[in-house]
């Protein structure tokens, strides 16, 4: 039986030729994402802003979002946020919690559910979530902290295992991935909650896996081809690992698409984030972490003992300055 080869044997794509354009695109995307998050903001779930949210599922045709908003507004708990939720017959209704008074906050949950049941007798309500402001503040803090520490811890490990340039490269790639995912959520206004933080962490894990595979090959080739220029060497490493990159990404894409199409609607946002993350993560290991190695002047001497490296290194950097460096 002839086996399928996703990438032909003699593939030789000059990835790094496009690195400046790619970097520019990445830079613009990062800036755009930050602007989007700043201007449009994230549609934060109750996990992060506090308040209460109820999932409402309509057994018959769903009324328009405006009708639902109007009816829920009439309950008198303030302007609600209504959002389609995965399937086309379910929405999540979110309102703020009355400030201060604990008993009032307690009543509000009942009020909301009963109000919705009265307005839409055929609808089913489920999944009530109430998070107080204090807890949501903590969830933001611990979520952000674990995200930041995970990125930092990983970069330090890569620094120790490889060289500091690799650590910086990985950190930039991760920063790129996380920022773009945030931008995606600001753009689509999909609800951003704790589950999405878990998705972000998964994206980081995946992107990193990719980056390390490339880095490992770069390290190996740096030792093997000591005379090769850094750019052809990176291109070689990327091409050598390309069939693996394609195969793994394809597996993940297939798995996630299945989850997106057939999976439960509660994880729709989660799966969508991951799907996007696979693209971004694969892209960033090729066009974020690798070019950074060029700029940070990684050379064959990065992996030989320091003493003999000093003089040879200086010369090599000199040569690179003529051509490749931006």
């Amino acid at each position: 039986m002839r086996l399928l080869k996703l990438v032909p044997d003699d593939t030789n794509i000059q990835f790094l030729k496009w690195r400046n354009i790619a970097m520019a695109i990445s830079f613009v995307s990062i800036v755009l994402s930050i602007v989007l998050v700043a201007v449009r903001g994230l549609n934060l779930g109750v996990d992060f802003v506090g308040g209460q949210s109820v999932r409402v599922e309509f057994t018959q045709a769903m009324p328009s979002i405006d009708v639902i908003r109007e009816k829920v507004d009439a309950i008198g708990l303030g302007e609600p946020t209504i959002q389609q939720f995965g399937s086309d017959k379910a929405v999540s209704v979110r309102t703020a919690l009355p400030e201060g008074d604990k008993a009032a906050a307690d009543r509000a949950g009942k009020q909301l559910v009963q109000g919705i049941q009265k307005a839409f007798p055929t609808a089913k309500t489920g999944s009530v979530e109430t998070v107080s402001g204090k807890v949501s503040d903590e969830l933001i803090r611990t979520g952000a902290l674990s995200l930041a520490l995970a990125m930092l811890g990983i970069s330090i490990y890569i620094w120790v295992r490889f060289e500091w340039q690799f650590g910086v490269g990985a950190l930039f790639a991760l920063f790129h991935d996380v920022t773009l995912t945030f931008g995606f959520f600001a753009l689509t206004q999909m609800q951003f909650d704790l589950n999405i933080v878990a998705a972000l962490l998964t994206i980081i894990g995946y992107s990193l896996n990719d980056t390390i595979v490339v880095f490992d090959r770069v390290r190996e080739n740096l030792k093997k081809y000591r005379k090769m220029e850094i750019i052809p060497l990176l291109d070689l490493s990327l091409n050598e690992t390309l069939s693996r990159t394609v195969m793994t990404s394809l597996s993940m894409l297939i798995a996630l698409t299945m989850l997106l199409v057939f999976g439960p609607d509660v994880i729709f946002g989660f799966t969508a984030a991951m799907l996007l993350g696979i693209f971004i993560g694969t892209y960033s290991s090729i066009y974020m972490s690798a070019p950074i190695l060029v700029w940070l002047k990684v050379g064959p001497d990065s992996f030989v003992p320091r003493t003999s490296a000093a003089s040879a290194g200086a010369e090599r950097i000199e040569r690179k300055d003529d051509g490749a460096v931006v």
Partner: protein
Amino acid sequence: MLDFPRWKTIGISIILVLGIVFSIPSFVPERITQNLPGFLQAKVNLGLDLAGGSHLLLEADVADLQKTQLANMEKTVRTAMRGERGPDDDIAIGELSTAGGKISFLVRDQSKLDAARDRLFSETQGAGMTGQRDWSIDIVDTTRIVMTPTAAGQRQAIANAMDTARDIIDKRVNALGTREPTIIRQGDDRIVVQVPGLQDPQQLKDLIGKTARLEFRMVDPNADPNEAAAGRAPVGSEIVPYAEGASAGAPFEVLRRQVMISGEQLINAQQSYDPQSGQPVVTIRFDSGGSATFAKVTAQNVGKRFAMVLDGKVLSAPSINEPILGGSAQISGSFSVASANNLAISLRSGALPVKMTVVEERTVTPELGKDSIRKGAIAGIIATVAVLVLMMVVYGRFGIYACIALFFNIFLIIATMAAFNATLTLPGIAGFVLTIGAAVDANVLINERIREELKRGRRVFQAVELGYSEASRAIFDANVTNVIAAALMFWFGSGPIKGFAVVLTIGIVTSVFTAVTVTRLFAARWLHAKRPTSINI
């Protein structure tokens, strides 16, 4: 790398078999697992987001606790200054202030200052293992004594109160009769309550919100009903209303102010049936001190009535038919099974030592949870099959090895989670997906490397050997970084992130084992048996 001594092969096989055996309980329904031996009972718990149920996060009102403690210490100080041996033993004190969370008072006779301090010192306690007392006692201006709660003492007090509160909430929630509630302390001043299957958290909140204070008091037999109806009670007595729906007759009772037995002395209260009439009754039992008091009081008051008062509301006021000497009494009346049960629960649940408020609440309907599991399982199976087909089409025999290893990996993750009693949540499933992805990736890395080495003209044995050894480095680095990330998430993250981290950590270990070691064993056995000169990969 392709040599597997016999002990290694046997060891690997044992681990794989154990993985399958211990993951069985998580797949089969409970009625089957019940018949299995004890070591096969452990199964993966489903988180509330999958199983449905209610989750409450309660926070203690620490300020309120400190206020109560200050008030208690004030009482203690006054009692201690009064002395035990009559008026001569008294230490006269001036105005006592509790401003700023401290107790401060003037000792009128300066010569008794030291004696006063000694008496107070014996009222303070060591704060845990810190070597500190719970209150510090200082003499200011040679006339005043100032008592300040120490930080260690306050921490200890909160910890004690939280332990008690946890136990009481546990008792109350268990009284609901739901399946396997989880009640655990979180941080310094919080308690997590999770009740699978519970739909209406209001019932749970009502139960928890109660700050029950239970007392047993005598009904004043001399009270004039007309006077009482007008709101006047005899000296030493007071009018106490009935709890909602607890009385068929008058809406109140006139009770002696003196508390006969306090709720702490009640050990148990249970709904049962009267052996003669078959009517539902409530059986209560006191501890030894309570039994003695109860025996004395009932012996003196046959024919009279006593009342059980919970939070200033009368629950029931039965007559004393005979002296109750054994410490165990039966309360009969016009109970239904439900009302008897309710009274028993109210009596059992006791008082919370500190006010608790709900700061986070989540309820998932079981239908939604079931739907999530069903769809998740379908999607998971389709996704797995698709990936397996891809692996086989691309890598042939080595792809099949990877697929078998992947199945073992799934079993091992589930078995390990069951052994640690871990909970699978939606984010946990995400962690699952990531580890499966990492396992597939490990095999992709190895197989691609084997292809490469073959292309370079290496012989089959050498190519496979190099494929494993060269790819292992990247696999190792990738997994160690993931473990670092998972560990940080576990330490600093909250709920869902923790669930993700647990599955990720377990999955990383098992996936390296199956994707690298197990497939290598398969490959080695095949190569040694067939000694092929070329392989299709």
